[in-house]
């Protein structure tokens, strides 16, 4: 159980400790890059089986964005799609023996939430201009300015904590089941953790889309 809470340092790189989380993140990244390269190596107008699955995923993300912010599906696809793919893969990485789910480390979860934190003003300013975006902060009255700023910060923390808490909680439950009886008993819980990981990726993605589409939405008056 101890290894769930204390960072395990693998080796030192230029004096910086490289923990199990970082190594797991590298493995997840390598897996995704190699898989993407393998699938898009020979793209066919008539998709093969793997290409079909990926096309389905891309179309689902585009439809998700189009449902909330019509006309912007292609524009937000790179960010939202990568977040969904990475979190979905990273959250079930602890099923591979020897790996730790990178998102069960608060640093990874907070880094992902920071990406969203900076992407919201980026898209907002890119699509509505500096004045148009910052007018949102003082509408309907300048008294609400501190509350807008506080809500930006707290929702970043809640994004990070939600992802981190869910995935870490799942890992702890599997760890406890392993302590009680290591054979067969943890398997239902591990299957359930696949469900939890995918749901958390979906929720992170959908909240990202909600925040970004709220920032790029043009209000009248």
């Amino acid at each position, binding site marked *: 159980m101890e290894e769930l*809470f204390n960072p395990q340092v693998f080796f030192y790189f230029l004096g910086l400790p490289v923990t199990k989380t970082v190594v797991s993140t590298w493995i997840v990244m390598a897996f995704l890059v190699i898989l993407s390269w393998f699938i898009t190596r020979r793209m066919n107008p008539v998709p093969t089986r793997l290409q079909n699955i990926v096309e389905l995923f891309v179309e689902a993300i585009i439809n998700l964005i189009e*449902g909330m912010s019509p006309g912007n599906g292609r524009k937000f696809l790179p960010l939202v799609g990568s977040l969904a793919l990475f979190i979905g893969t990273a959250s079930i990485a602890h099923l591979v023996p020897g790996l730790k789910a990178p998102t069960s480390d608060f640093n990874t979860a907070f880094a992902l939430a920071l990406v969203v934190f900076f992407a919201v003003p980026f898209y907002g300013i890119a699509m509505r201009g500096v004045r148009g975006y910052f007018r949102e902060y003082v509408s309907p009255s300048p008294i609400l300015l501190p509350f807008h700023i506080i809500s930006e910060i707290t929702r970043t923390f*809640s994004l990070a904590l*939600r992802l981190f*808490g869910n995935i*870490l909680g799942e890992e702890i439950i599997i760890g406890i089941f392993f302590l009680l009886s290591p054979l067969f008993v943890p398997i239902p819980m591990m299957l359930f953790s696949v469900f939890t990981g995918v749901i958390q990726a979906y929720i992170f993605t959908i909240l990202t889309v909600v925040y970004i589409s709220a920032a790029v939405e043009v209000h009248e008056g």
Partner: protein
Amino acid sequence: MQGEILFLCVTVFTAGFSIAFGVVFPALGQGRACAQALESIARQPEATGPISRTLFVGLAMLESLAIYVLVVSLILLFANPLFRYVFK
């Protein structure tokens, strides 16, 4: 020694108690949200898509309250900053 043991007891008790109480109310809220969404879907099955999307966002918001409690009790149990002062 007496004080340290009391500190440990109170910490463990608080962690367990906060999970027990902190999970009740988000669970009630999530139950209500689910029930309402099911009712709306039953009444208007063609609106399943938007309803379930909104339901997921709402559930995530409620879920995060329970997750805050989990994080607090994990901190109490495994990363308590006060341990340093009690156990020199």
